[in-house]
């Protein structure tokens, strides 16, 4: 049995027939072909698959594709506008907030929501809000600096 889904991802609308058990992250990677969203664990600890679904940061490995029917989704590929990096992306580059780059898309998408909640976050707030995203390379030091940089250089609305 397959079910129809219609989702808007980075401003473009996609229609597919999918198995009800298909995870949203696999839908995005395999059917839509956007491979920037990564899978790092099976148990929703690592946050590498974090995307924005209707404005909320969610772990796409914890959502079925059919649950995203009608949703408006932003993935890492949709964050830069007209070739201009989003301030969070720029912050990660400026402050060396990544090494292997695998956790980075999820980190950036989680940071997006973080800065919506706390436009001027304290270091403690940043560290607490990143609790659901794991990085094995940076020891988090420069990820914190990257988000602080982004907070100091907000996007032009």
């Amino acid at each position, binding site marked *: 049995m397959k079910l129809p889904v219609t989702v808007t991802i980075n401003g473009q609308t996609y229609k597919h027939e999918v*198995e009800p*058990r*298909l995870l949203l992250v*696999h839908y995005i*990677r395999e059917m839509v*072909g*956007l*491979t*920037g*969203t*990564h*899978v*790092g*664990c*099976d*148990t929703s*600890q*690592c946050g*590498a698959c974090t995307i924005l679904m209707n404005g909320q940061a969610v772990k796409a490995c914890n959502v079925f594709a059919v649950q995203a029917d009608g949703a408006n989704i932003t*993935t*890492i*590929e949709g*964050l*830069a506008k007209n070739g201009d*990096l989003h301030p969070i*992306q720029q912050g*990660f*580059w*400026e402050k*060396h907030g*990544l*090494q*292997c*780059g*695998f*956790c*980075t*898309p999820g980190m*950036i998408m989680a940071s997006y929501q973080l800065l919506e909640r706390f436009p001027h976050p304290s*270091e*403690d707030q*940043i*560290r*607490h809000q*990143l*609790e659901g*995203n*794991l*990085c*094995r*390379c*940076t*020891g*988090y*030091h*420069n*990820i*914190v600096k990257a988000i602080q940089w982004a907070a100091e250089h907000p996007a032009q609305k």
Partner: protein
Amino acid sequence: MATTTERLFGKAIKRREDPRFITGRGQYVDDVKLPGMTYAAFVRSPHAHARLRRIDATGAKATPGVIAVYSGQDVQVGGLPCGWMLPEIKVPVRPAFASGKVRYVGEPVAVVIGESAYAARDGAEAVNVDYEPLPAVTDAKRAREKGAAQLFDEIPNNQSFYWTIGDKAATENAFKGAATVVQQPLLNQRLIPNAMEPRACVASFSPGTGDLTLWVTSQNPHVHRLLMAAFVLGIPETKMRVIAPDVGGGFGSKIFVYNEEVIACWVSKTLARPVKWTADRRESFMNDAHGRDHVTEAALAFDGNGIVTGLRVSTHANLGAYLSTFAPLIPSFLYGPLLSGVYKLPSIFCEVWGMLTNTAPVDAYRGAGRPEATFLLERLMDRAARQLGQDPAEVRRRNLIPKFTGGTPYQTPVAFAYDSGDYEPALNRALEMSGYAAVRKEQEVARRNHRYIGVGVTTYIEACGPAPSAVAGSLGAGAGLWESGAVRVHPTGAVTVFTGSHSHGQGHETTFAQLAADELGIPMEQVEIVHGDTALIPFGMGSYGSRSACVGGSAIVRSVEKVKEKGRKIAAHLLEASEKDLDYADGKWTVKGAPDKAKTWGEVALMAYLAHNIPQGMEPGLEATTFYDPSNFTFPFGAHVAVVDVDVDTGAVKLLKYVAVDDVGKVINPMIVDGMVHGGIAQGVGQALWEHGVYGPDGQLLTGTMMDYAMPKADQLPNYETDRTVTPSPVNPIGVKGAGETGTIASTPTVVNAVLDALSPFGVTHIDMPLTAEKIWKAVAAARK
């Protein structure tokens, strides 16, 4: 040497690889999608030790979307090789699929190939395997005991090797004459690497040409190709191409040849279709090579003046069920020779039992042997300080090897000859940055108010870029330890650098471009770095042991020198000047005393390819290849200080401050070095406080997911304060030492010692790692009774 107005060597240049990663356009193995691709799912043993009686694939074959099912009877390939031999070592056969018996939980038993990953998974769940469970042994020491479960009939007492280093008699004498002996049984617990990208591979066999292409999460694609082609698949290397594209961290775990990629290659050839396998995290926990797992008895002897005179070490190293690619090397030559640390230690004796158990194979994990040695030595130094009633920093200072930077190495009693060292300034700087004296005063005051602050100090040595090849060979290496670097100058003067090193987070595309552009005096934009593809790069030993800069970088610099040398001849010819009358700076040759007579790098490169006017007898073209084999390891060192606050009512540890002063020789890009130090510290803190790969007595992996295995998180760690002293290495042409593992090596004992320092008012002298809240609370509760 180029004297550009602004040197690129030493500059914190933003990474050139980042734009693709921050926009989601990296290309990792799991992102590879080929026409006609099939997907593999593995059936794995749920038992730690069992006879494999029957595999029934009927249900799997009837599952929709399943193409084929294969097990050990079908797959005709050689066993997975072990690449390092020790004297009288016993190496068990490690088949790609379990054969006859399974020996650890997660060992592959069969593979199901499906039209989709989901179909393959459905099929794997429908495979019925009949096992006859056997008793298991998971502890290295118990594996040697009488009556312990036996993994292999041909390996009595599960002992793969017994290895020693040092002078036993001299060490015994030191202990006989000692004024103070400090001893401590130590557990260096098993760790599970957990690079954020799970291992993956895509194998694609072309029936038309007979060529096999393997995309694989590898730290060393050429080593992968060599071992797989020569030992496992039995095909010429010329018919195999290994590509390690963007790789999401390795930390050692992606050095080795594993079952899954071998089987994927065989299946691709059999089905004549591409095969993809991507580990889920549970599979990574079960089948990626683990790290550490030592049980050790150790003792230090001191004379009456607090001078250390001897070290005695006896270690049982858990190797897991089979010998992974470099498993025997880690608890032997990367462990024993590090035991002198930064100390003048006249006698050392170390013996190691390498034991097979019903657990996942153990191999190199960030630091690999060196953290085990450093933890041991630094725990003992701290216990000594307490036993001698002295300040831990002063006990260390008194025993430091004096400065040696004149080119004469320092010979330890355990084989290593350190390249250069000046240890005290790093210690002084770390103490200064941490406000050591003030923190000690604060500690006094706090204790009176029942608040328990602790300070840990570590001075450490690290050994990077294992070398030279001839010595490694005599010690059992199945590989050379050089690196290749090829430099191809294009007619425009743009340069492509082909390196055998592999970057999986280290930023080689930036640092190597800095190196090459700096030597040539041309903009970085004109230099491209190529790595990770056996079809493009002459050969390569890959990245591990913090060798990329000191070995791989040196190979590149040598090749740049060679193309410059040829370029100088062409320039001299064009300028009608003598070579020795030319200066090279800012990308051009000028005639001494006549600065308007000049030829630019681009003009010379073009002429090398036009060949209209080059010296007689010279070949056209401009490129060079170097296989650089260093004469020795390099030996970074440093001092770390941690300050912790321990809540003795809950056992919770808060890291208040972490100071790292490292000496990694000359630094190509300080931003990148700092980043590696940060990450290393976090991994070492993880071992000190949280991480532990635990097997139950029946051999079940109890920490098989990220819910059970405690990965360090952002809200558990502080900002790190880093600084450096700079003692160039005389070993290589660029004076670098290596920076990838120092943080991990130093931070584990630093934090453990800090916590135990906090608990000293309770008389707690030791707690085995990880120092979880529960263990700390129990130790304090027991002490209060």
